[in-house]
């Protein structure tokens, strides 16, 4: 899929663990892992909103479009 999820980088820059983010946004760590690994087929606006709020960032910081992939 040409959409890359940069959640790993965002978590590393904010020194936050996946488990903490999952707890904060109210999803399971398994689902967050699916999102981080790029296996997810879609993301709900509510989830994206919660991630942006928790990480204090914009959707463009998390999602990236790369046509080569």
């Amino acid at each position: 899929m040409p959409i890359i999820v940069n959640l790993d980088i965002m978590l590393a820059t904010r020194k936050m663990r996946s488990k903490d983010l999952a707890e904060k946004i109210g999803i399971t760590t398994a689902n967050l892992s699916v999102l981080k690994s790029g296996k997810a087929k879609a993301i709900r606006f509510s989830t994206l909103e919660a991630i942006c709020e928790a990480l204090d960032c914009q959707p463009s910081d998390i999602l990236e479009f790369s046509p080569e992939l």
Partner: protein
Amino acid sequence: MRKLIILKSIVDLFWILSLPIVPLILIFIPISFITADFNYFPFKINGVEIETFDLGTKIILTVMLLSYLLLIYCIYLFRKILTCFIRVKIFDEAVITNFNKIGNLLMLSSFLIGIPSILYKIYYTENIRFELGISPFIFLLCLGFFFMILSEIFKISRKMKEENELTI
């Protein structure tokens, strides 16, 4: 779920009752070619009683019996699908494959029943009649298409389920 169990019981019963017929058919087919005359067995093809037992009639009879074996195999596959449903494996790959297989086999079976019966009527009774209503040929053909469509629907449903599960 109670309806599913009732259906499974009916299909199981039908499967058990039809099982003894399989070896009989498999024994009968070679015997019919060896035996010159066996008028002691009353046979009917689509309501027409067979009186002459020549090679043509025997081939027609064999083809129709083979189609019956295919129908029994379809019941076996349907049992497997119902077992998957009972185990709540609704969108399993086996269900989709078996639905498609049943559809193909029913279509093949409909042609194996339909064409010989038409040929028999043309060659032996020498009269062609047009009958309105549901004939076994049309019924099996429609049922075959229905199962094939069902397989396609299950394939789409499976994809949608996967997408839904991977929506975070």
